[in-house]
């Protein structure tokens, strides 16, 4: 009992400014997520590797070994291997998938029958910060997922992948912007979709934005289909894959840098705003 008296008196949270209190609560939430992720390392690695690995294996290893496989390359006329086209595209998909898997899917559970989210919401920091922590943590996973694509794209394809970074700061900026935007997208999806319908999201949202996200072809290659080329501009994945394409494989045709950064920032702000609004509406009655 004497021990309890010693512990009960100081109340560690009583000292420090409000900003410090928020920072510590935020760090606590981040630590908790890190801890859980570390324990679920294997599923995380499988989730991050499987899609790019299979994609590269089928389209850049198996196909070229088949007769007429070369005709599978949509950018043959642009003078590059399909592996080179796929590298930035698969990184964009990895970033976006991580955003959904790290935020939208767990949120569906936490908002659902378990209402686990109530525990996080009772932390001593503004509720919006709980949502922002989710975005940040998801962004971290997206960055890891993007980096993992690199060695895969280097070793799997049968024809060499030509990657050349002209500006590292630009690459870092694109990866970070894309990763945070993906987290915000996950938050928006996780808070707008009913928990029991989250499975539907893959068919209704994830698949279309991936396949129409200039992942498997550069945006300029859509020129023969003008309506589609204009239509896909509302898809944030387009700017992720084009951004990575312009940063990693600048020999391929791509959008101007300013447009990519501008549109990624625009989607980041829009999706963060929508996501936080949805989160608050879900959490505060």
């Amino acid at each position, binding site marked *: 009992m004497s*021990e*309890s008296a010693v*512990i*009960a008196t*100081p*109340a*560690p*949270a009583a000292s*420090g400014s*409000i900003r*410090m*209190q*928020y920072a*510590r*609560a935020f*760090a*606590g*939430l981040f*630590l*908790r997520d890190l*801890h*859980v992720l570390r*324990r*679920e390392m294997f599923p995380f690695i499988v989730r991050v590797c499987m899609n790019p690995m299979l994609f590269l294996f089928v389209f850049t290893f198996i196909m070229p070994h088949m007769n007429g496989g070369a005709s599978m390359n949509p950018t043959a006329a642009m003078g590059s291997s399909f592996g080179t086209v796929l590298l930035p595209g698969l990184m964009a998909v990895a970033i976006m998938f991580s955003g959904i898997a790290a935020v939208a899917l767990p949120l569906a*559970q936490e908002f659902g029958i*378990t*209402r*686990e*989210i*109530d*525990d996080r*919401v*009772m*932390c*001593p*920091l*503004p*509720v919006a910060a709980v949502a922002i922590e989710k975005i940040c943590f998801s962004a971290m996973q997206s960055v890891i997922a993007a980096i993992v694509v690199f060695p895969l794209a280097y070793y799997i394809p049968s024809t060499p992948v030509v990657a050349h970074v002209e500006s590292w700061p630009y690459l870092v900026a694109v990866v970070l912007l894309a990763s945070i935007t993906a987290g915000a997208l996950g938050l928006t999806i996780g808070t707008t979709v009913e928990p029991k319908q989250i499975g539907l999201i893959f068919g209704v949202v994830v698949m279309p934005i991936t396949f129409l996200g200039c992942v498997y072809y550069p945006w300029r290659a859509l020129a023969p289909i003008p309506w589609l080329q204009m239509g896909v501009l509302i898809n944030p994945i387009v700017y992720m894959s084009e951004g990575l394409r312009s940063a990693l494989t600048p020999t391929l045709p791509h959008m101007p840098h300013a447009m990519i950064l501008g549109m990624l920032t625009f989607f980041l702000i829009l999706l963060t705003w929508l996501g936080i609004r949805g989160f608050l509406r879900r*959490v*505060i*009655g």
Partner: protein
Amino acid sequence: MIVEIEGLRKVYQGRQQVVAVDGIDLAIQPGALFGFLGPNGAGKTTTISICTTRALPTAGRVRIAGIDVVQSPAQARRSIGVVPQYNTLDRACTIYENIHFHCLYFGFSRADAKKRTEHLLAQFHLTERASAYPQQLSGGLAQRVQIARAIAHYPKVLFLDEPSAGLDPQSRIAMWEAVKRLREEGITVVLTTHYMEEADELCDRVAIIDHGKILIEDTPAALKNSIGAQRVYELDLRDLQGIPAFLEQLQRRPGIASAEATAKGVRIFAGGGAGGGEGLLSDVVSAANPYGLRDLTITEPSLETVFIRLTGRELRE
């Protein structure tokens, strides 16, 4: 006053407008064990949700330890511990981690968090289950973990929303013991319940709430006396046609506070003071015999009597 509620209203807009809380004023003393008693849908949970910053009021205000919960929710949460109706334990973390991370959220250093977690696990007899996951726990055990976690950051007020719902009698008694001990630590406890004996056993003060309004607020003892019902006699009669005449006869008799018809006979509320004592039973029995008395049930005064008198008998929801 540690909890101050003024003119609290909550209206849910929608296809059908629902007034969940309709003008509640309340002040709770530091160190009190306060109970909200009411039927389902009375507005208890909504009131607790607003007090714990998880819902916004339509009007009125709530202050916890002097901090307005709408204006500075993040600050108010430091003074609040919550055990909601449902199990909100973090399913991805063990029992130990649930409490440990809760401490970290509230700014404890890792060393302090470890010490606090170990102390709480011991206090709530959870040390053996420290590495279990919430899904592996029984309802009573999960409830104890939730209480331990809720008080980990030394809140001034602990809110328990229907803490004994779904617990077996042993777990309920263990939970009561835990709650009583919290009071000894100086934590103010506010709980909601629709179990009368729980309110009677635990609370210093009780507010009976229905349709979003507080009907009455007092100590359990005063409530039991105030309504005038000392004892309740339930009589089953063979002659149902004679009930109105019998009721009239009963109401004239001294020592009877009131009487009402039931499906099988009459219900008599004995009044306090003279005539309400032992002698009343034989009077009632002899008066009822001409109407074919079949059965007689005597209920000692309880909060349930008060509760039913105030909130009626019809089924809710």
